[in-house]
C-alpha cells in the first residue's frame, strides 16, 4: 500500500484488518511524517513513539491471532493536550502544568484505547483552550500547513494541523466556542462538536464546564463519523453526560442524502463581517445542497447578536473557577517555595508566572463578572441570553432540519495579526458560539478555497441536540458532491510540505 499517510482512516483500518499492511507500518509512517514536518508545523507537544508502536504491535498480534477488532483498530490519532492520559504529560498548552503526568485516563482516552486506536501523542493548543489561533500556547504557535505564516485556528490548532499536514488521519479536539470547527475550517479538514453531553468530559481539563465538549476530527466525513461512534455514549463519571442511545452517525454518513431536508440559512450569520471569498464559497455550497434535493429556507435568530457578549461572560466566569486549582500546591509549576514566602505568595507567584496573558485576562473578567453586586448584571444576564438563544434555535429548528452558516468569518489570518487585539480575535467565533451556548451539535467541513487568498473555507452545519446524525447526512452529501466536482477532496490540494 503506497503513501500510507495520505489514506483515510477507514481505508487504513480495512487494510490493517486484511493484513495488507500492519498497524506498526502505518504507525511508523506517521511517526516518520511527524519527524519530517513537525519542525515546521509544530502540531505536537509530545509524541510517544514507543507507546504508539507497542500498541500497534499489539493490534497486529491480535489480528494475526484471528481476533475481530473495531472499525478503527490500528489507526493513528492525534490527541489534544487537554485530555488526560495516564503517565503522559498533559499541559493544556500552559506552563503551569509543565511536568504534570496525570495518574488516570480521560473517558475519551479509555474509549480510544478500547477501540485499539493508536495514540501518537498530544497536540498543541491555545493555553487552556482560550484562543482562536493556537498562538496562546506557552510552547509556541502551531502553523497552518496551507501557509506556514498563518494560524491553524484555535484552540485546537494542533489537532487540525496534524490532520492537514498528514501527520495523523484522526484527531480529537474539544470545542467550547468553536475550537474544533474553526480550526477545521481554516485547515480544510472536518470537525464535529457533538451535542453537549454526548461525549463524556471526564478527564477533559475544564475551560468552561457548561460549554466544553470533546469531538472527532478527520480529513473526511466518514472518518469523522467512525471516530464519533467510538467516543460518544453515556459515562456515569460525568453527571452531565447524556444517558441516551448514540445516534447512528456512521449510517448517516453512508446514506449521505439531503433529499427532502429543509436547510435553514441563519440571517444573523451571513453578510456583513464575512470575507467575500468565504461568503462566495458558502453560497455555492448552499446551491449545491439545493441541487441535491434540499429545500433552502431562511431563519431568523435575533438573539445570536448577543451570543458573543454572553459567551465572554459565561466562559470567563466558569474558567476563573475551573482554573483556581492551579495554585502550585499539588502538581505542576510551583514558585517561591523557599521558606521565605507565605502560602498566598507561593500561589500568586506560581499563577503570575504560570499563566499567559490571555488566561489572566479571562480569569480577571470572570472573577469580576461573578463578584457580588455584579453577578446579576453579568453572569445572570448572560444566562438569560443563553435561554433566548436556545429559544431561537428551537424556533429555527421548527422550520428547518439543520441550519448552515460559514464556520468562520475569514480564512486563516497571519500569525501575529490579531494576537494583540483580543476583540478582533474573539470575533472569529461569532458563528460557532451560539451552538455551544445552546448545547446542540455542529460540524465544519471544507467547501473550497477563497478566491482572494487561496485558503480553505469551512461550512458549518448545525443540528438540534441529540440529532447529530443530521450533520453527517448533510456533510457527507455535500462532501460527495464537491468531490465529484473537484475530482478529489479539498485536502489533496494542501501543500506537500
Amino acid at each position, binding site marked *: 500500500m503506497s503513501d500510507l499517510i495520505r489514506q483515510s482512516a477507514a481505508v487504513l483500518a480495512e487494510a490493517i484488518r486484511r493484513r495488507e499492511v500492519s498497524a506498526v507500518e502505518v504507525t511508523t509512517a506517521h511517526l516518520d511524517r511527524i519527524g519530517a514536518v513537525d519542525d515546521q508545523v509544530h502540531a505536537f507537544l509530545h509524541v510517544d513513539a514507543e507507546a504508539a508502536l507497542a500498541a500497534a504491535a499489539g493490534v497486529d498480534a491480535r489480528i494475526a491471532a484471528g481476533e475481530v477488532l473495531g472499525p478503527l483498530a490500528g489507526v493513528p490519532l492525534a490527541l489534544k493536550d487537554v485530555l488526560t492520559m495516564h503517565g503522559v504529560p498533559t499541559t493544556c498548552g500552559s506552563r503551569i502544568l509543565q511536568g504534570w503526568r496525570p495518574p488516570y485516563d480521560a473517558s475519551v482516552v479509555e474509549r480510544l484505547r478500547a477501540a485499539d486506536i493508536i495514540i501518537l501523542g498530544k497536540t498543541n493548543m491555545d493555553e487552556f483552550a482560550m484562543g482562536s489561533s493556537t498562538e496562546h500556547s506557552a510552547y509556541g504557535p502551531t502553523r497552518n500547513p496551507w501557509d506556514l505564516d498563518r494560524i491553524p485556528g484555535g484552540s485546537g490548532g494542533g489537532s487540525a494541523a496534524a490532520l492537514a499536514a498528514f501527520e495523523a488521519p484522526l484527531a480529537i479536539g474539544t470545542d467550547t466556542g468553536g475550537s474544533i470547527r474553526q480550526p477545521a475550517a481554516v485547515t480544510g479538514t472536518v470537525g464535529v462538536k457533538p451535542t453537549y453531553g454526548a461525549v463524556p468530559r471526564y478527564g477533559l481539563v475544564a475551560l468552561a464546564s457548561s460549554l466544553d465538549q470533546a469531538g472527532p476530527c478527520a480529513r473526511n466525513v466518514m472518518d469523522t463519523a467512525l471516530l464519533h461512534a467510538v467516543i460518544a455514549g453515556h459515562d456515569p463519571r460525568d453527571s*452531565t453526560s447524556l444517558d441516551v442511545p448514540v445516534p447512528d452517525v456512521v449510517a448517516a454518513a453512508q446514506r449521505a442524502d439531503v433529499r427532502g431536508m429543509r436547510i435553514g440559512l441563519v440571517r444573523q450569520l451571513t453578510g456583513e463581517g464575512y470575507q467575500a471569498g468565504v461568503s462566495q464559497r458558502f453560497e455555492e455550497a448552499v446551491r449545491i445542497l439545493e441541487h441535491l434535493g434540499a429545500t433552502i429556507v431562511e431563519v431568523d435568530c435575533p438573539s445570536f447578536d448577543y451570543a458573543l457578549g454572553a459567551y465572554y461572560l459565561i466562559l470567563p466566569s466558569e474558567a476563573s473557577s475551573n482554573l483556581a486549582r492551579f495554585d502550585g500546591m499539588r502538581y505542576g509549576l510551583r514558585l517561591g517555595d523557599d521558606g521565605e514566602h507565605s502560602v498566598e505568595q507561593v500561589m500568586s507567584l506560581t499563577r503570575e508566572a504560570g499563566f499567559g496573558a490571555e488566561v489572566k485576562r479571562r480569569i480577571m473578567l470572570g*472573577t469580576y463578572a461573578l463578584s457580588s453586586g455584579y453577578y446579576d448584571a453579568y453572569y445572570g444576564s448572560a444566562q438569560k441570553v443563553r435561554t433566548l438563544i436556545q429559544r431561537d434555535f428551537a424556533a429555527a429548528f421548527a422550520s428547518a432540519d439543520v441550519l448552515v452558516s460559514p464556520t468562520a468569518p475569514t480564512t486563516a489570518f497571519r500569525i501575529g495579526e490579531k494576537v494583540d487585539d483580543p476583540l478582533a480575535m474573539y470575533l472569529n467565533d461569532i458563528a460557532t458560539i451560539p451552538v455551544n451556548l445552546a448545547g446542540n451539535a455542529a460540524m465544519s467541513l471544507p467547501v473550497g478555497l477563497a478566491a482572494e487568498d487561496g485558503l480553505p473555507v469551512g461550512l458549518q452545519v448545525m443540528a438540534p441536540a441529540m440529532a447529530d446524525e443530521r450533520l453527517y447526512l448533510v456533510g457527507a452529501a455535500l462532501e460527495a458532491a464537491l468531490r465529484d466536482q473537484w475530482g478529489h477532496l479539498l485536502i489533496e490540494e494542501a501543500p506537500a510540505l
Partner: protein
Amino acid sequence: MSTTKSSAVDVIPFDQALADFEPVLGLEVHVELGTQTKMFCACPTAFGAEPNAQVCPVCLGLPGSMPVVNRTAVESTIRIGLALNCAIASWCRFARKNYFYPDMPKDYQVSQYDEPLCSNGYLDVTVQTQDGPQVFRVEIERVHMEEDTGKLTHEGGATGRIHGADYSLVDYNRAGIPLIEIVTKPIVGTGALAPLVARAYVTELRDLMRALGVSDVRMEEGSLRCDVNCSLNRPGDPWGTRSETKNVNSLRSVERAVRSEVERQAALLLAGGRIIQETRHFHEDTGRSTPGRSKEHAEDYRYFPEPDLVPVAPSDAWIDDLRTTLPELPSARRERLQQEWGISAFELMSVVNAGALELVEATIAAGVDQAAARKWWTGELLRTANDRQVELSDLPVTGEQIARIEALIAAGSLNDKLARQVFEGIIAGEGDVDDVVAARGLVIVSDDSALIAAIDAALAEQPDVAEKITGGKFQAAGAIVGAVMKATKGQADAAKVRALLLERLGVAE
C-alpha cells in the same frame, strides 16, 4: 465612638451582663454524614486512615476530574430535613464557593448557596429551669449539602496554627467527605438561658442524627462541629454586631462559648467599646476565645451554580418513601420512656442532661430495674466521666455489665461500695465484671467466724467502746463496724457486722 482598647475589665459576670443586654444567638452545625463513600466520588470515608490514602482524582480535584453526587448523602439530608420539619426543595442545585486555601483541592468548595435542599424547619428543645422544664422552639433556616475540606497540620512554631509554623502538611482523606450544614434562624428571647438553649439544641440535634443513623456525630473526631454566632443588644434596641466563635468541640463548650462571649461582649459594650464582626477561636482549656479573622469586609465567594453537576430534583414519591424510613424521633422517645419508666419530667431531664438516655435504656433492656439503671449512670458513672472529662458514652461500661453487678448485689456477694470498685476495674481495662471481681477479690465476707474474729480484734483495740454499747450508747457501735469494714477492706455487709457485734455483746436495741 470611644476606644476599643480593652479596659481593666475584660469580662463581667454573666448575670450582670444579662441585666443590661439581651443575647441573640445563631448556630451553624456541620455534620459529617456517615456514608460509606465520599460526597462526589467512591473513596472510603473511614476515620483514621494513613494520610492521603483515601483519595482519587475526584477528591484531589485533579484537572479533568468530575464530581458525581452520592445518592445516599442526598437521602440522608432529606431525612434530616424531614426530621427537622423542613420543606424539601423539589429542584435545587449545588454551587461553587470560590476561595483559595491549600486544604481545598480545587480552590472552590462544592456547596449549596441560594437553593438549599431543605429549608424553614424547627427543632424544639427543653432546658431545665428553676420553674421546671421549659421548651424553646429553635427555627431552622436551612439544611444544605457540601463537601468537607482536607485537614491541615502546621508543624513547628508554638501554637500549632499557620502563623509561625515551619511547614504545613495536608491530608486530603477528609476532602470530599459529605457534610451537611444546619443553620438556625436568629434565636431570640432566651435571656439568661441562652447558654443552656444552645447546648440543648446541639445535644438534641446530635441525638436526632444518631436516631436517624446518618452520622456517628462524634464531636471530638470532628464529625459534628458547631460555630456559635452571638450578639448583644440593649432591650428595645436593634440587634448588635455578631461574632462567630469556632473550634467549639464539645457540648459543654457550646454552653461555655456562649457564656464567655456574652461576658466578653457585655464588658466591652459597657466600657463604651464596639463589637467587631469577626471569627473567634474557642480554647477548651481556658474556656475563652481569641480573635481570628476579621469579617468586617465580607469575603466574596463568587458563588455560582456548579456546572459539573445536574440539579437535584427529588420526586414527591421519593420524599414520601424517605419519610416512611424516619425512626421514632428523640422527643417522642423521651415522652415514651418517661411514661414507661414512670418517672417525673425532672428525673428524665437528669438522665437526658447526663447524656445517659440510650445507656439507661440499654441497661434496662439488659434486665436492670429502671431506678438502679438511672442511679448508676447519673451517679457514680457520671462522676467518673466528668472527672475524666469524657462523655458518658465513652466509658467502656455496658448495660450487661451493670445487670451482672446488680445480680451480684441481689445475691449478697457485692455491695454498692464494692460495685464502684468493679466499675473502676472495668474502666481501667481489667476485664469484665467477673474478671475484676476475681482479680481484685471483691466478695462480701459472709463467713461469720471471720467477722467475729475481726469484731473481737476491734473490741480489743477499743476497750471502752464495749462498755458504752452495753451501757446503752448504741451509736458507739459505729466505731467497731467501721474498724471491721476497714479490716475487711469493705468486703463486709455493715448491717450484718452490727448485728453480730450486738449479739456478741449480748445486747439488743
